[in-house]
């Protein structure tokens, strides 16, 4: 397997405050990589930096193309779908309009329509609510909508920022089951940020552990799962 996304020596700032220190990441094609760490370790910042949403330095290479200087919009158009913290719902648009927004950047509208059917296969609940205002959806449904929106742009890589946040355990299980299917069936690679480490380790095949803006260690999920000291020190279980 070759790397789909390579991040080299990435630092990032919020105003004058430095949040990332020379981060190196490599995300395998077709795999699921988890980014774990305590609050404030820089997980969300890393996702934002990859999409050029904040001031940052270093290099980002997507499938051999340097995307460091590209705008957020361009990076998305190149196939990096970011499911943001807080779900980014367009609350006054209907569920259908939330999804149809992807038609704006897609040339192949016939195929996009097929993708919409596909999305509804993964999330039948969204189909039931197709004409509803997205702001009236439950938290779990809005998270599903966020993932569905990302899927609609036919991504090569999905960046997921705490998809379990604020959701009931059963809903979280459902969403992670669907994510696993999307990864396997649609061949979408994923980089997932999670507070719920056990859940993320279960889904991911590779893990990076962050602490105060730097990578502490990285390796296959099984390595972290089996390393009690590591788990206790950084993941708290």
């Amino acid at each position: 397997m070759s790397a789909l996304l390579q991040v080299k020596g990435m630092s990032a700032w919020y105003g004058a405050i430095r949040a990332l220190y020379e981060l190196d990441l490599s995300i395998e094609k077709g795999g699921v990589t988890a980014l774990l760490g305590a609050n404030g370790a820089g997980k969300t910042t890393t996702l934002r930096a990859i999409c050029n949403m904040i001031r940052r330095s270093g290099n980002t290479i997507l499938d051999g193309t340097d995307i460091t200087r590209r705008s957020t919009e361009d990076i998305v158009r190149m196939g990096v779908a970011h499911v943001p913290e807080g779900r980014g719902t367009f609350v006054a648009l209907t569920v259908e309009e939330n999804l149809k927004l992807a038609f704006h950047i897609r040339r192949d509208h016939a195929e996009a329509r097929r993708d919409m059917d596909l999305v509804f296969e993964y999330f039948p609940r969204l189909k039931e609510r197709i004409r509803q205002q997205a702001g009236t959806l439950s938290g779990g449904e809005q998270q599903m909508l966020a993932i569905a929106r990302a899927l609609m742009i036919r991504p090569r890589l999905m960046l997921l920022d705490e998809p379990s946040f604020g959701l009931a355990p059963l809903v979280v299980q459902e969403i992670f089951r669907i994510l696993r299917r999307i990864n396997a069936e649609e061949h979408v690679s994923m980089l997932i940020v999670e507070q719920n480490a056990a859940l993320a380790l279960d889904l991911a095949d590779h893990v990076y552990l962050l602490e105060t803006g730097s990578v502490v260690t990285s390796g296959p999920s099984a390595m972290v799962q089996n390393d009690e000291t590591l788990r206790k020190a950084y993941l708290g279980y």
Partner: protein
Amino acid sequence: MDFFVQQIAAGLTSGAIYACVALGLVMIYVSTDHINFAQGEMAMFATYLAWAMIDAGLPYWVAFGLTVAIAFGGGLFIQRVVLKPLENAPVLALVVCFIALLSIFNALAGMIWSYTIKQFPSPFPARDIFGNGLVSVQQLGVVAVTLIMLGALTVFFRYTTLGLAMRAAAQNATSARLMGVRVSWMLALGWGLAAAIGAIAGMLVAPIVFLDPNMMTGILVYGFAGALVGGIGNPMGAVAGGFIVGVLENLVGSYVIGNELKLTFALIVVIGVLLLKPAGIFGRVIVKRV
């Protein structure tokens, strides 16, 4: 009774124009949270362009179409060149910038075309529509043009993906960017549309009030009142508000306070709405959690 109907018809006619101005204001407000004080002067300037074209011998509707197109391009240009560099500037800087645009357009029009009042042709005859002296073809034409424009805009925003992208960008810019929408261009498009709508308002009102560089000053106040009455964040509300202000202004002017105080009435409406119902009739109250 006839007088009452005449006043309503005249009110709806000016209301249609206020609705256009209000819509232009709302178009920019929903996506940037700014009130473009230069909206009226931009419309006035576009109307002068139309006048110059008609004066040069172009047929009315050709000049009308060209003016709308040029206004659209001009609005786009202003956003790209003047406002984009101010993206992260404080609100006051922007207000100053809008006022600067206002005086630039005003002075430019005076410089090029002089401050003497000019007659602007109307494509609609002034004769009665039913022969009973109540409603003129001119009045009906103004309302019809406004409604056609509204219909076109509604179709654009509701049924095209570009319209959808513009709505998404106005609602949640960050999230729209993450869907690949070029938000900054959507703002420019919004400015283009606002300028085009303003140009239509200017060309509709010019035959009634005559063309001069200060033509839109009062009308902008009415348009602003209309936008506020309807709810400044709601395009449909702004249009309804424009019509409401137009009709009320006429009725209050003819029955209560007389024509001289009409503009005062608009200002009272502005203050009244802001004091009593800041969200307007159709606006949503936005509660911010702190």
